[in-house]
């Protein structure tokens, strides 16, 4: 499903060169729930961003769903992200000017889908995260856990084959965190969705199929 070969990421300034990822080889098969752990600054989020085609590696190749990615800014890559990938961010990244259902509909706006169908799909996604009664609310009217569930609904509304979650429980208390992991696990089991999750929480990581650890940009386990 996701194949990373010899991926490196180097940040260069005039005076300093920082290696964020160092020759990472990783294979995430279809339907796996993988978690990535490691101390702050070890390159977890960078790795996730590269897998999600949100950032370009400095070296190496990426294959996602059998397709080798070369151009990151093209229309085709945008469409690929739209159809194959779903993202969940630690700080939710909901658009404050849009209400809940419009936020969830967002990925569908960039597909040729009628408004009626979009509404239906978004409603189903919200139902699946238990927020069917919050459609017309705006993000600032929701709790942290509710926001993250809206973000999950947005990530799954387009039926992506891969979900990339960057510390999805990082801003939540343990009860809400458990709820989020429960939803993700259900998605993984019922829909066979591949999930890659970055987390600091060992307890959450233990609930996933596989755990890899990064240290200073290198995979250590």
């Amino acid at each position, binding site marked *: 499903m996701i194949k990373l070969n010899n991926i490196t990421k180097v940040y260069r300034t005039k005076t300093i060169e920082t290696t964020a990822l160092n020759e990472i080889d990783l294979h995430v098969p279809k339907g796996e729930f993988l978690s990535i752990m490691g101390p702050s600054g070890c390159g977890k989020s960078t790795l996730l*961003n590269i897998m*999600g085609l*949100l*950032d*370009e590696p400095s070296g190496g190749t990426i294959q996602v769903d059998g397709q080798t990615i070369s151009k990151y*800014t*093209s*229309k085709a890559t*945008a*469409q690929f*992200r*739209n*159809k194959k990938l779903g*993202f969940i*961010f630690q*700080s*939710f*990244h*909901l*658009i*404050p*000017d*849009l209400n809940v259902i*419009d936020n969830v509909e*967002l*990925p569908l*706006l*960039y*597909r040729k889908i009628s*408004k009626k169908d979009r509404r239906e799909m978004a409603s189903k996604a919200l139902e699946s995260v238990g927020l069917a009664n919050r459609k017309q609310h705006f*993000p600032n009217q929701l709790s942290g856990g509710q926001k993250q569930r809206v973000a999950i609904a*947005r990530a799954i509304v*387009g039926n992506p084959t891969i979900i990339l979650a960057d510390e999805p429980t990082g801003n939540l208390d343990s009860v809400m965190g458990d709820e989020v992991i429960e939803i993700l696990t259900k998605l993984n089991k019922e829909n066979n969705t591949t999930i890659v999750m970055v987390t600091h929480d060992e307890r959450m990581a233990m609930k996933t199929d596989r755990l890899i650890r990064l240290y200073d940009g290198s995979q250590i386990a």
Partner: protein
Amino acid sequence: MLKNYLNLAWRILGRRKFFTFISLFGISFTLGILMVVLSFLQSELGTNSPLSNKDSFVYIQQTSLQRTYYDTIPTIDTIFEKDQILYDTTYTYKESGTGVSQSSLSNSIIETYLKDLPSASNMTKFMPGNLQDVYVNGIKLSLNILLSDANYWSIFDHKIIEGRSFGEEEVESGTPVIVISTETAMNYFGRKENVVNEEMFINGITYKVIGLYPNNGKIISYVSPDAVSPYTSMVSSRKKEFYFGPFNVMYLAKPNSIKQLKSDIKAVAGTVPLDHPDNKYDYKEVIFQPETYNEMYAEGIYYDGGDAEKSLSIMKLVLICLFLFFTILPTLNLINLNVSRIMDRSSEIGVRKAFGAHQGNIITQFIVENIVQTLLGSLIGFLIAWILIQIINNGGYLGNSVLSFNLKFFVYSILATLLFGVLSGFVPAYKMSKLQIVDALKENKL
């Protein structure tokens, strides 16, 4: 997709109330004020009645007689010779300047030299600024009565709404007939209609009202007089002279002949004799200064030594500068607001791109938002202008000037503001759309 963009634009306007208010206030207020100013210019300088032929007008206000002054300058040198002071005086005779006498034109100059010029299709002579006091029920009423020939009515196309204007026979015979404005009718007779065949007692003469025209509110007195009467109907107290008299002349140039007519008029000045007994001060040159209507108007605002073309150029420049000043400032403000608004939404751009928006989607979204905002501002501007024009017209704050709404300018203004709206949205949207998704998301302003 476009429907989504429009929907989103509408929501953004509603959600970001303060920003929306500032933007709409800037656009609508600027547009509204500009439209009122343009309505005034259109009313004052536009080609509308009685100035429908204005663009072919060539005007002579006066005759100038010029002479050169000479001075005798004594220079005294002192020389010491054999303990004595000797004086040696030299006399120099040289030019010390020019003197000009100016006044309105005489009938004889007009009839002999200025009539029937080949590049003019028509001409009228008239005496402006003739103020007469009349009394209505013991109350003084000052009337600006224009005394003219019959051609006045074919050059200045006042709409006669009742009766008729006077003709050549009435001018030749000096018949005391008068055509009055609706305001004069109201002030004198207490009504704005049914005044034909009524009588007015002016300067010891009883005038018969033969026509009525609406007030047009123009500033120039001979365009907007209170009444017009044959110039022969009132005896001028002014002494008849060969060079100077009480008249102004307005020509109607043949098509594309303004320059030729001006040059013909200047050339004719050279044929006016200088050996007439009325040339008491030995003037050496007769000068006519023909000018177009706009030049004459500009000279009234900014006089530059008689160079009417320069006055007009300066007036145009001032108007353009004012126009630019009052449009560029709000435009820059709008651009600045748009830039900061779009920059402020970088995280949103990151999220949209992460979920599949490409560069074109992002740019289109922000441009549509700007277009919606600009159109809304323009509509409010339209309303502001309309309300202000009604207030000015009903309250008479600009005298008799009647402002009308200029739809053409409104359309041009909307197109211009749309262009600014699109450009001011495009530049920051393009810049932001090129932003790496991770960098945009790092802003974390959501």
